[in-house]
């Protein structure tokens, strides 16, 4: 069992990170998430990182990459709940955050995905987009 559970709600995957991410665990999370998208055909992914106190460039890169990879598999990704000090640290370091969709918390993250589904449809899996 993965130390970071991935829940499925309809076509959305929800993943709450509440343990400290070392390099190996971050890589494992990425693999688990992508594998679950493949198995479930999920079209959305919310990664709740409100429990992460430290996000260094290595972990930030894995999180951003995971979103891009999920996107290539047809799942929109939202990073939800980044703490203020984590956001400040990443921006001050110059970490490139373009292309990363973010939301204040889990609720907003899910709402953002739902909104995206009824709006633009580019890049989604055929037959899975809302009319």
């Amino acid at each position, binding site marked *: 069992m993965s130390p970071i559970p991935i829940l499925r709600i309809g076509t959305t995957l929800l993943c709450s990170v509440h343990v400290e991410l070392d390099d190996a665990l971050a890589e494992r999370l990425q693999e688990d998430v992508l594998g679950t998208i493949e198995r479930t055909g999920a079209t959305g992914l919310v990664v709740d990182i409100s429990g992460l106190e430290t996000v260094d460039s290595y972990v930030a890169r894995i999180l951003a990459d995971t979103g891009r990879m999920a996107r290539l598999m047809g799942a929109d990704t939202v990073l939800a709940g980044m703490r203020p*000090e984590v956001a400040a640290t990443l921006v001050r370091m110059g970490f490139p955050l373009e292309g990363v969709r973010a939301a204040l918390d889990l609720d907003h993250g899910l709402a953002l995905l739902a909104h995206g589904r009824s709006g633009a449809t580019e890049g989604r899996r055929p037959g899975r987009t809302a009319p």
Partner: protein
Amino acid sequence: MRPVEVGHRGGERAPRSTRLLGRHELPIACEADIVLVRRKARSLAQAYGFDAFATAAITTAASELARNCWVHGGGGAAVVEELYDGTRHGLAMEFRDTGPGIGDVEWALAGGHSTTRSLGLGLSGSRRLVDEFALETARGEGTTVRIVKWKRF
């Protein structure tokens, strides 16, 4: 070979007035040690009452420099010092390795440059997160990076 030294904001305070309240040496001999160094930075910053932003800054910088020490320098040690300069507490962290050294310090510190196809944000990024940053390196002899973060009032 002559070591290359880079520093900033180091001359603001008279060093003789700074007292050393504690000192910890942590090995960086495997990937898992990066997390231990980062935890030490966090727990000391919290113990001294650093705010969340300063705590995240020193913890993240520690994580970046410990990773560099391990990945590029082949491992070494981190020395953490608890400081008091008469008015405020601070944390100093020194990362030492006996690896290949940094050939072009300016290039490495400019940011966005990496010899491992990474983002190249570790050195330049951690420099921006701390109050003092000093780098000493010599080809074939190793690299030492010392950072200091002071508690804000």
